[in-house]
């Protein structure tokens, strides 16, 4: 290891000055069976195809995009539930992309995952105390006699009654179950939490409760988040920076306000313009909605060059031949992968009066 690499007692190595998390051109290609005589016609699904992302300590980065864009696969790559086909996943400067399960163990503690479905991600036969306690024990967080009190403390932190540690998941409502999942993630005292659609299965009023909880945890504990959601309002509310994905690629990334107010990529513009906005009832004239034609192409055989070009109104010959790089343009604060990137002519999102 280089001189700048420190190994802490926990077994997690660290390069001085490196960002908390850094993805460098990460790719994940899944194999599908072909129709050939001897299963030779193998095809590759390019679920994630060259994603780069940086997360600083305590920062919240949102990943948005429509189904099949690769955002959930990215979550599973960051948490190393999947091993990437190519690219680097650096945690504090150390590449964990191809680490063995044994080497990964200390990192698993620091990178936690919260799932979408609070119904299926908790073992129905374990009490809440066991679920949270197992996380504590796995990572050797507390001595045996301190376990119960720490479990109760965690339940209190996430807004559950600490006396309910001996209840089973089915005795809780959906929102409370999501809180249990959060308590489990917090048990390991992580530095970063990857939250994959953490509120999309919840009712509106409960969704806001859980979002406020996550926000408080972020402020008080300084945990960084990679926040994945299809709800653009939720992401805007929660994140410092936002990355937009389309068909396995990142098309635009930048500070929240810049991305929402002055999106430069045609896809980001179309996506934002499609969100129904409640402001119309308050007298705001209905906004112009960009209508995208056709469906998202198959990730097995994505278009050449820019992947969005088949549905893009700006597409020209260059888009089919040259893959646009994700780069900063002369105007605008976001980095964008488009040959014809420019801020929208008029505001695509209705102004609130």
């Amino acid at each position, binding site marked *: 290891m280089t001189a700048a690499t420190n190994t802490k007692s926990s077994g997690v190595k660290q390069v001085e000055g490196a960002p908390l998390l850094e993805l460098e051109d990460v790719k994940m290609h899944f194999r599908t*069976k*072909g*129709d*050939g*005589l*001897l*299963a030779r*016609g193998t095809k590759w699904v390019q679920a994630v195809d060259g994603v780069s992302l940086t997360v600083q300590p305590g920062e919240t980065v949102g990943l948005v995009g429509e189904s099949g864009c690769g955002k959930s696969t990215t979550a599973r790559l960051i948490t190393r539930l999947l091993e990437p086909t190519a690219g680097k996943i650096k945690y504090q400067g150390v590449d964990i992309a191809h680490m063995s399960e044994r080497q990964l163990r200390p990192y698993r503690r620091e990178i936690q995952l919260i799932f979408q479905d609070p119904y299926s991600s908790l073992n129905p036969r374990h009490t809440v105390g066991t679920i949270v306690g197992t996380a504590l024990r796995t990572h050797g967080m507390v001595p045996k006699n301190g376990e119960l009190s720490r479990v109760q403390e965690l339940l209190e932190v996430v807004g559950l009654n600490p006396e309910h540690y001996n209840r089973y998941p089915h005795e809780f409502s959906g929102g409370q179950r999501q809180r249990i999942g959060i308590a489990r993630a917090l048990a390991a005292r992580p530095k970063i939490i990857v939250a994959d659609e953490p509120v999309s299965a919840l009712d509106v009023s409960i969704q806001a409760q859980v979002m406020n909880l996550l926000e408080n945890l972020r402020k008080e504990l300084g945990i960084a988040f990679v926040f994945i959601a299809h709800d653009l309002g939720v992401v805007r509310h929660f994140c410092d920076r936002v990355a937009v994905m389309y068909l396995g690629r990142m098309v635009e990334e930048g500070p929240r306000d810049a991305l929402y107010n002055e999106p430069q990529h045609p896809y980001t513009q179309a996506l934002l313009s499609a969100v129904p906005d409640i402001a119309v009832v308050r007298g705001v004239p209905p906004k112009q909605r960009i209508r995208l034609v056709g469906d998202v192409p198959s990730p097995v055989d994505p278009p050449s060059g820019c992947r969005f070009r088949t549905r893009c109104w700006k597409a020209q010959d260059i888009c089919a031949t040259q893959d646009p790089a994700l780069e900063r343009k002369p105007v605008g604060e976001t980095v964008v992968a488009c040959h014809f990137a420019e801020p929208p002519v008029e505001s695509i999102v209705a102004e609130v009066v």
Partner: protein
Amino acid sequence: MLFYILRRVLSAISVVIVTVVASFMLFFVAPTDPAGVICGPKCTPDRLADISRSLNLDQPAVEQIGLYFKGIVAGRDYSAGGVTRHCAAPCLGYSYILGVPVTDLLVKAVPVTLSIVFGGATIYLLFGVLIGTISARVRGTTLDKVSVGTSLVIGSIPYFIVALVIALYATFLPKSQYTSFFENPVQWASGMLAAWLCLGLTNSASYTRYSRASMIEALGQDFTRTARSKGISERRVVYRHGLRAAMTPVITIFGVDVAYQLVNTIFTERIFQLPGLGTRIINAFNQYDLPVLMGGVIVGATVLVVMNLVVDILYTVLDPRVRLG
């Protein structure tokens, strides 16, 4: 599709070959003494050596297997005591005990077993699915409870007891015997009736339960609600939309199940004294008649593999979402 079937047939053949080689090793190359068995208790060393030679038991194992496969594909000649007999393909050797070609024995036995199993299977599939479907439609009512209860009771009685009861008490049934279907279909059916009833009765219990569970699931699906919202009759909702979805898993179980029934008809054949494959194999087993056992193994393996293939292909026909490949 064609590629898929071809690939599956190739893999099926290789499974059978592997089974044959494995059982051949087990029966002939392992420290057994087939020549001694044929020779009998009053055996002279000369005679033993002669038998060994005629069976090629003195050859290396690889060569023996090679000869065995050659027999299956092209037939082979046996010479013993100066006499040469040609055994036409597919040749599985001669029975040690009966001295007749194994192929002939199997050709006689297999139709009996097929008749028993497919006849019985038709009965239990029809009854099971019908009762199960009705039961699912009237879920929670007395009728449903009675049918579930009855099928539980029947399903928990050991098979051979049901068979014995039918054999002993259902004397009004025609005498159990085998006549070829092609000779006299009526006699074929009446001779099989007792065996069919026995198989049908015991197995329809479990098919009632499968069908009922599967049907209840199908009727609770969103597409059933969509079907109702169209304004079609409840009968059509149940029998077109529900049954179609419910039958796919049942058919899958059925296919594999029939294959096992074919291999396991021994009780039925014994009790109803039908000269089927099971009887043949048990006799061979008791008498150490290795060539017949080998033949039985080959037939059994082939049946299992073929039925699995049939189920897989049927599945793709039933469920358009299953893509071959």
